[in-house]
């Protein structure tokens, strides 16, 4: 049979190709800009990559360029967020996929999705004006600073909860019925089936959900800018103020720095570090999905 060239089909194909290429080009453009500007930072000769990664102080105005305080604050807020969102998200997913009746599910799921639709600036003020006072009430005013990483971390946890819950739910929902039925046939209770059969079977998807949530937490900006603090500090105490990488970028790019100064270029260096972290996390999550995927039937 001879292939007939249809003009309409061709136009559609080309248009779609164009859009596909465009998104790749945009990504490439972003990477290029980031790379170029951060190269300028390291090429300025004022700072070596080694010192940038290991020095314990960040204060560009006086020539201190150690990313550790910023990175540790990012780690702190993200870990706190994961401590909240990972267990909660998993349990919500288990409940929604295994226990909830269709009617309950039809009510709960949209409500959960509303959480995801709240602008992050609202979460920021929620952290500052609700979570922080609550923490101070519980732990004492002198223990908890007005700006602190715990409060920001909790808010980020709430922010990424729906993301983790709904991705995990998809993963658990995809576990074949036959596995569950086999477990029931062996006399397992619903809880045993959920926790020892369904969750392990869907673990690749759940892990991927956690990692996507984590990279979202690392990149979160508005909440930490409002609630975590505006000065870099190397501290392991979640109740003290500390500025995260994104928090620093947004504060400095607020129009108060001259172009092509070392401090200005430093925000691109931080940007590329952030980019590499989230890229690495995404690669890891794809790997996990591929490696641990249990193939049934």
């Amino acid at each position, binding site marked *: 049979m001879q292939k007939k060239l249809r003009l309409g089909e061709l136009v559609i194909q080309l248009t779609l190709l164009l859009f596909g290429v465009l998104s790749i080009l945009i990504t490439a453009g972003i990477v290029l800009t980031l790379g170029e500007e951060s190269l300028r930072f390291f090429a300025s000769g004022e700072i070596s990559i080694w010192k940038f990664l290991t020095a314990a*102080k960040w*204060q560009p*105005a*006086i020539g*201190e360029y150690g990313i550790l305080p910023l990175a540790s604050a990012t780690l702190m807020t993200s870990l706190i967020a994961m401590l909240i969102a990972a267990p909660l998200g998993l349990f919500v997913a288990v409940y929604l996929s295994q226990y909830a009746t269709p009617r309950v599910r039809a009510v709960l799921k949209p409500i959960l999705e509303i959480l995801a639709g709240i602008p992050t600036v609202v979460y920021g003020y929620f952290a500052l004006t609700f979570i922080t006072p609550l923490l101070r009430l519980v732990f004492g*005013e*002198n223990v908890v*600073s*007005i*700006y602190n990483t715990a409060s920001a971390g909790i808010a980020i946890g709430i922010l990424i909860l729906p993301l983790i819950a709904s991705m995990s739910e998809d993963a658990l929902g995809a576990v074949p019925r036959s596995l569950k039925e086999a477990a029931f046939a062996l006399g397992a209770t619903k809880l045993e089936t959920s926790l020892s059969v369904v969750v392990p079977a869907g673990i690749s998807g759940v892990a991927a959900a956690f990692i996507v949530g984590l990279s979202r937490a690392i990149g979160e900006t508005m909440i930490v800018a409002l609630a975590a*603090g*505006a*000065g870099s*500090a190397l501290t392991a105490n979640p109740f*003290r*103020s500390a500025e995260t990488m994104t928090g620093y970028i947004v*504060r400095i790019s*607020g*129009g*108060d*720095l*001259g172009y092509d100064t070392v401090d200005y270029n430093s925000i691109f260096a931080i940007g590329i570090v952030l980019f590499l972290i989230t890229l690495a996390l995404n690669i890891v999550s794809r790997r996990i999905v591929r490696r641990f995927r249990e193939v049934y039937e």
Partner: protein
Amino acid sequence: MEKVAVAAVLLLAAGSLLSAQSSKKGFEWVTRQSDDPLLPGVNSLKVTGGIISAGSSTVYPLSERMVERFKDEGYQGSITVDSIGSGAGLERFCVAGETDVANASRAIKSSEVESARKIGREPLEFRIGTDALAVAVNKSNTFITNANKEELRLIFSTARKWSDVNPAWPKQDILRFIPGTDSGTFDYFVEELFGKKKEPILGAANLQLSEDDNVLVQGVEGSPYAIGFFGYAYFQENKDKLKVLSINGVAPSAETVNKATYPLARPLFLYSSAKIMREKPQVAAFLAFYLTYVNEEIRSVGYFPAEAEALKKAKQNWLDAMKGAY
């Protein structure tokens, strides 16, 4: 009879010429009736075109107030006031040339004047008032009411706990909330206390920096062991939650600022240029309006009027720049 008619026509022509003279294009807003002995009156209803200004977060509340009044009296155009710090404001004015007016809480530097000249702008200075920098602590702080400069130097640099400055003070960490490194307030404070060296203050522990003075106020409100400094207006606005320190035994007030006994008082400025004011008459109108009414508003915003001489000099600068333009 004919002669009379010709004379009348001539008179009319001359009259219309004269009236045209008094309202050149763009300057229709100039009125004879003025609330100022030096400057021409401004009919805000007839001012057209947008104005862009940016700069000091200290000048910001005052400029906002003047803009509000300008609009209340009929100005229809759009006017932006960005609060980005004196340095950034002057950079936008002198290097990028994006703004018509720069707000500053310090005098322009000679390097900035040079870059402005490179893009064809000769900065023109308008002194609009005086700010007393307020060093503030939490209302519930009972141990400190006064500090001398030596104590301030310690508090804002090497001291880790309050007891490191004065053994009678509590053994608690000092939580510092200071304006960002590009604000005029920061520059001024560093210059007054540390002789332009930024290292001591930026090396301090528990340091929070922000260009947004409300962030600082909120921080100081948050703990009895916090301390911060910012423009007096921000203290005034939050005086139910904050306590201002006396410096060397002198509390900031209109009297101590005018007599220059309060050690941390500094001038506030607007910068523009004659070229901008002539090309964009709305900028000239806004500046004239600003200089005419600033003293009626400045106290309620929380700052102090400039010395009469300095304000007069600002008005003279305006008149010199606009000579023959309207």
